[in-house]
């Protein structure tokens, strides 16, 4: 092993601390053995093991040895550095050392949890410890650089999660940009009539929040807009927002509907997105009466004027405030923010993917979202639940888990379907007095007042059949089945197959990631789980953070959630964002690149490679110069430097080469 540096602080004195992590490590790794082994390694002066190194007494061991001058650098063999590196660095710093005279050996996630054979595990642990020691002897004291944090917040998505996050941040005095893709905020919640389990009116609790967003001095609301680009890093993001032309001036329009009445299309004839196609709209429309902002929008796909230019456009004349402007162009807004909260939500499963349920084939089979609109007093049927022939259904089947818990579609449980199915069962019974049959696999009602709601429905004489519906068809075996939809399922609690004739079927579709979730995550440089939901930094301890500092998650974009959970998570995400902002500055890992000027040949290979243009060329000295503020520490330039004059703090060639030698031949 090459001679480490003798100048700065004499012969290295390495302290090695092996953690048992209760039995998490100790049950597969022979800790005593690793301690014996570590003691023989060069420059090691102290070796200790302890049940929980991350506990205060554990950290105290390190701090004491440092204060006693027994060690000047530290190796902790425990969990992943992503878990506790920060903890131990802080401990070292508090004891008066330098946080970066430290290296971790990951003998839990990478050893004890993935290896059964004790001998092999202990062997691997030794190798990783040897590598960490070999590396840490070359560590140098480093100072964290810190940069100021821009106090403004960007929130993407104007559903209940985005709305709650926006209001919370704005009330904390932060400037908030709320960007929503649709012409109005409100998201899915705005479509519902009632909310479970309290059955309070969705609009009544949501619309006040929506108008609060509109009127809040600290909130800039951009609807019908999308984030087009994100640059920068935690505390200092540069974001481009594309504002699509709505051909109606938001400042001038007062939402009086005159233009809409005047449209050349006397009869609305285009599927209404807000009513999920159950009703029609005109090319110029306002999604729903409480839309926020209450501003008309013109759909370029269907507007005759925009498509052909040959429309008498009476809408223009009808508007007394001259708000309609066909020359409106897309606008790109550029903003700087310190934190970003993603609240982009979910989409519902397309029921036609399960062909044996006959969605789109037989009449009177609806998705749960369609029924939500039907039961909504402001919906296409004015809250009436009706068959296509206008009659009230006498029997209705509600099919749970459509698209969920199925390896062919979505493996996960969508968490909200059982409860909203109960809600819909109640609402439909209330409106039609029909017999309601719920077909479920397992009834999942964990939540405050949820199980009680289930019991209430049981008492309301709604039928519950434990069995996943096999098929829905229109072939009759008995006279009663003639002209009905026949639901075939096993009543698993009885152990017989039942055929139940109904007039209407509700398919309780599951929740899915947005179709463009993958593009969005790339845009913000975060990860998705296998199912396509945005990936949180830690499932338990960092549920609203992502692997990209400064980007947080709120609501169903991270996984299926009901309204209370979305709101709670939105609050949590905002709190994280505020914590970041109010700290005023972010400390950056000092793993930036630097140039050994005496070795640099001035070939400038590195300059083109840097994705952050952090490297420039000093014409006098004929050497490359790294701007530490811009460098993010990827090390690409270092690997490509032919002369080896570029190095990376915490990842110098020498440190990595030592680590390699350590893992390969450690005995």
């Amino acid at each position, binding site marked *: 092993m090459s001679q480490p540096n003798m100048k700065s602080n004499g012969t290295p004195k390495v302290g090695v601390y092996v953690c048992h992590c209760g039995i998490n490590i100790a049950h597969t790794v022979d800790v005593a053995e690793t301690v014996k082994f570590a003691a023989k390694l060069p420059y090691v002066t102290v070796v200790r093991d302890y049940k929980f190194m991350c506990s205060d007494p554990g950290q105290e061991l390190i701090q004491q040895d440092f204060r006693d001058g027994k060690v000047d650098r530290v190796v902790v063999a425990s969990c992943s550095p992503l878990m506790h590196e920060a903890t131990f660095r802080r401990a070292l710093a508090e004891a008066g050392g330098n946080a970066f005279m430290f290296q971790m050996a990951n003998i839990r996630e990478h050893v004890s949890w993935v290896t059964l054979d004790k001998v092999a595990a202990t062997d691997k642990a030794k190798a990783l410890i040897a590598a960490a020691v070999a590396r840490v002897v070359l560590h140098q004291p480093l100072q964290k650089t810190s940069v100021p944090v821009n106090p403004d917040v960007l929130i993407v998505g104007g559903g209940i999660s985005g709305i709650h996050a926006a209001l919370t941040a704005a009330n904390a005095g932060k400037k908030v940009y709320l960007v929503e893709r649709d012409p109005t905020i409100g998201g899915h919640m705005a479509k519902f009539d009632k909310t479970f389990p309290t059955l309070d009116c969705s609009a009544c609790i949501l619309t006040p929040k929506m108008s609060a967003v509109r009127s809040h001095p600290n909130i800039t609301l951009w609807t019908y807009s999308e984030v087009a680009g994100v640059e920068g890093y935690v505390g200092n993001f540069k974001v481009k927002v594309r504002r699509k032309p709505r051909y109606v001036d938001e400042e001038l329009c007062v939402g009086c509907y005159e233009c809409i009445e005047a449209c050349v299309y006397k009869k609305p004839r285009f599927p209404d997105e807000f009513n999920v196609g159950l009703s029609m709209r005109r090319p110029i429309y306002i999604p729903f009466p409480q839309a926020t902002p209450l501003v008309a929008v013109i759909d370029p796909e269907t507007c005759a004027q925009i498509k052909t230019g040959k429309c008498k456009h009476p809408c223009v004349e009808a508007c007394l405030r001259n708000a309609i402007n066909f020359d409106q162009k897309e606008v790109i807004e550029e903003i700087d923010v310190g934190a970003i909260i993603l609240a982009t939500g979910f989409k519902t499963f397309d029921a036609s993917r399960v062909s044996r349920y006959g969605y789109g084939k037989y009449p009177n089979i609806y998705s749960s979202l369609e029924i939500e609109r039907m039961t909504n007093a402001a919906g296409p049927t004015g809250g009436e639940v009706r068959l296509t022939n206008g009659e009230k259904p006498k029997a209705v089947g509600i099919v749970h888990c459509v698209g969920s818990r199925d390896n*062919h579609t979505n493996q996960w449980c969508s968490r909200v379907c059982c409860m909203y199915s109960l809600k819909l069962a109640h609402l439909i019974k209330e409106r039609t007095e029909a017999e309601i049959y719920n077909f479920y*696999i*397992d009834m999942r009602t964990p939540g405050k007042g949820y199980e009680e709601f289930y019991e209430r429905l049981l008492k309301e004489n709604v039928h519950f059949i434990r069995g996943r519906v*096999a*098929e829905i068809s229109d072939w009759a075996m008995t006279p009663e089945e003639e002209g009905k939809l026949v639901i075939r399922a096993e009543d698993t609690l009885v*152990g017989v*197959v039942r055929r139940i004739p109904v007039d209407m079927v509700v398919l309780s579709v599951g929740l899915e990631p947005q179709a463009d979730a993958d593009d969005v995550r790339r845009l913000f440089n975060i990860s998705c789980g296998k199912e396509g939901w945005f990936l949180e930094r830690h499932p338990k301890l960092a549920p609203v953070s992502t692997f990209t500092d400064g980007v947080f998650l709120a609501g169903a974009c991270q996984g299926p959630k009901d309204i209370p959970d979305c709101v709670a998570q939105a609050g949590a995400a905002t709190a994280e964002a505020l914590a970041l902002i109010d700290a005023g500055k972010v400390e950056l890992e000092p793993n930036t690149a630097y140039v050994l000027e005496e070795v640099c040949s001035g070939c400038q290979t590195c300059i083109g490679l840097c994705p952050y243009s952090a490297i420039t060329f000093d014409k006098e000295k004929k050497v490359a110069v790294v701007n530490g503020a811009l460098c993010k520490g990827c090390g690409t330039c270092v690997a490509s430097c032919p002369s080896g004059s570029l190095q990376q703090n915490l990842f110098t060639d020498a440190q990595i080469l030592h680590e390699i030698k350590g893992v390969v031949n450690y005995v």
Partner: protein
Amino acid sequence: MNRWEGWHKVRYESELAPHFAAEIASIPGGDHLYSCIQCGTCSGMCPLSHHMDFTPRQIIAMIRAGFKADVLSSYTTWLCASCYSCTVECPKEIKLTDIMYAAKRLAIREGVYPKRFPIAVLADEFFKSVERNGRSSETWLLTRLYLRTNPFKMLKQAGLGMRLWLHGRLGLKPESIERKSELRSILKALEKEHMIKRKGNTAPLKEVAS
């Protein structure tokens, strides 16, 4: 028979076969068996479940719980017409049809199968005829079947047979391939691999009360 006999509702652990599930799961792709959530899609899809003493879903539960005797002597596996609708729709990709086959093989190997049930006999005759000639000739197959199970049925079916013959849809000569030895050598080579010992299916099929 005495109504107190038959399928009693208490099972003692000592009556169960703890390794039954593993035995069944050992068929190709059989381990999906363990992910059953008892949703009943299989029973609901099955066109025959309403004739079965246990629904397919119950059979899976019984296999997992080790109810070997009950499963092997039940009508269910024998009534399976192998239409695969359960297999195709199972949300956990359990190959139920294959599991039914596996249960049938075990039932035959252990000489256990429900009373007055010709299906096992058909299978056995079919098997022998193919081992013998490489092909099965429907006519002889059915004849043997009826002789072994219910000769009167044959008389009942004679009309149909005659009709088929008149329409030239009844091959009376036993079908056979030319290179029988070639086929035999292949099948022989598998004997040792064979899950079922040869004598297993030549031995007369024992009947059990059901």
